[in-house]
């Protein structure tokens, strides 16, 4: 805490710091923390408004981050097992199915082949949809038999295309669906979301800084009289800035808290439709990333942005503060 005074200079210094050591530093912080709580609680309305503004500014990029995390998680899970599904003609010969399985299984890119016969397809369909009753109106099972080839994880696009052509040319195969297209779409979405997250994160981060800077600026204006007196009686710049850094941290932390609440609210609202949307692709919707570490980082980030905003406002305003 010795501000510029080396030991040698201090011995000759006619005005050594009056403050007696580290204890004084702690007492100053404690005093300011108390005053901050007092000052903020006396202006609860304004403080809540600032919390809300900072919270919204943080919630959007943080929410996008969560979304991106989950999309990445999904594509990762699927990317490991790209697949190819071949649907057979309704009147396919069982031998043709066996031949198809054999020729695909012989390929080095194919890890496993699983056949779903017409009855199994019907059972699956009944289990997964509400339309099952409609099937009862039909005389016969309209679903074809299919085979699903699970591929090795690092299959190239060319190999995939070659496999698709091979499967397409097999006797009895009516249609071939490569799941890669879906995967590519999801991973494209994930890329878009993450880039959007970065851009919005930057923009809204600056926004959060500006909001706290403005609020701290108002707090400074409200206490100019006090700042003048403080400077007059020998408060250091750091001491004068300290209460406002506390404000900034307080506003930022509150903002982080609001952001966390907004995001969990969002999750509650979107969870049901999202799991419906993804239901057929992922066994169960298991959101990742909304954990204590994420919440802690959100609070820390909010606090840090608040402090930066306060620093900006305080150093700007205190620089041209005329005492008398």
């Amino acid at each position, binding site marked *: 805490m010795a*501000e*510029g*005074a080396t030991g040698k200079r201090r011995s000759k*210094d*006619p*005005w*050594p*710091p*009056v*403050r*007696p*050591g580290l*204890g*004084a*530093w702690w*007492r*100053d912080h404690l*005093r300011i923390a108390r005053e901050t709580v007092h000052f903020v609680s006396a202006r609860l309305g304004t403080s809540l408004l600032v919390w809300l503004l900072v919270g919204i500014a943080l919630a959007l990029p943080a929410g996008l981050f969560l979304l991106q995390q989950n999309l990445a998680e999904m594509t990762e899970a699927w990317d490991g097992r790209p697949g190819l599904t071949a649907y057979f003609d309704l009147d396919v010969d069982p031998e043709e199915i066996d031949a198809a399985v054999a020729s695909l299984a012989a390929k080095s890119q194919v890890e496993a082949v699983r056949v779903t016969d017409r009855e199994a397809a019907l059972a699956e369909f009944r289990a997964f949809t509400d339309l099952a009753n409609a099937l009862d109106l039909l005389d016969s099972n309209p679903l074809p038999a299919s085979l699903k080839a699970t591929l090795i994880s690092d299959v190239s696009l060319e190999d995939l295309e070659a496999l698709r052509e091979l499967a397409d040319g097999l006797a009895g195969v009516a249609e071939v669906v490569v799941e890669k297209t879906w995967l590519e779409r999801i991973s494209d979405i994930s890329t878009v979301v993450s880039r959007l997250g970065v851009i919005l994160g930057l923009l809204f981060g600056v926004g959060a800084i500006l909001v706290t800077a403005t609020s701290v600026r108002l707090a400074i204006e409200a206490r100019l*009289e*006090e700042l*003048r*007196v*403080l*400077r*007059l*009686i*020998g*408060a*250091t*710049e750091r*001491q004068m800035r300290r209460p406002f850094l506390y404000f900034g941290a307080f506003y930022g932390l509150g903002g982080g808290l609001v952001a966390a609440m907004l995001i969990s609210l969002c999750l509650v609202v979107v969870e049901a439709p999202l799991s419906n949307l993804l239901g057929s692709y992922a066994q169960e919707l298991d959101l990742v990333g909304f954990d204590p570490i994420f919440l802690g980082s959100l609070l820390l980030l909010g606090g840090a942005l608040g402090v930066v905003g306060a620093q900006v406002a305080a150093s700007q305003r205190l620089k041209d503060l005329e*005492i*008398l």
Partner: protein
Amino acid sequence: MPQIEFHGVTKRFDNGQEALAEVNAEFAEGSMAFLTGHSGAGKSTFLKLLLCLDQPSRGQILVNGVNVTRMTGGRLAHYRQHLGAVFQDHHLLSHRSVYENVSLPLRISGMREKDVGRRVRAALSRVGLLEKERLFPRYLSTGEQQRVGIARAVVTRPKILLADEPTGNLDPELSRDIMKLFEQFNQVGTTVIVASHDRDLIESMGVRIIELDQGAIVRDGVDARVDPRSHESAERHQTGLPDG
């Protein structure tokens, strides 16, 4: 070595106004002096430069042998912690009690709370306001407010006490009480410099008087008697520098 030395101090504002012109003065440790002169003579400017609230255009101000005019940052803050300052419009914080106002300089210096209480009560009892410590400044009379300002200035037991028109709004009776207070602080070894245009009052105190006129010292010495002739001659002789 004098405690405070002004060496050829000139203050010219951006608009060309010269508030101090080649001022030379010395103050011994534990001495007392009044600054006087017409309105606009440069009294406040003199004290502001000493408090480093502004910088001189030319010249040096040495305090304990150190040039204070170009100090910044922590050193400047610590320097101010060792001064006490009183102003006409006392600069008390309206939303803080008398006790809190007076304790502020001690808190700034990081003093322990129980020591703070002791010091604040000592300072308040010196100015006779111990029983008002819980009140807010707006409920005090002007004279009482001024005494709170003085208590805040002396609570750190500064080596140097500066006051700018501390009796400005007060009636003669109260003014005399306030000046007596400064005299008492001087008697315990504090260097005291008080700016005042209340000539009758300060001439009656029997203390060194420095008279400024248009930024120049036209009289410097202990002179208990009012002498209109010397005053007039001083006014005609604006740039004269009588030896102190």
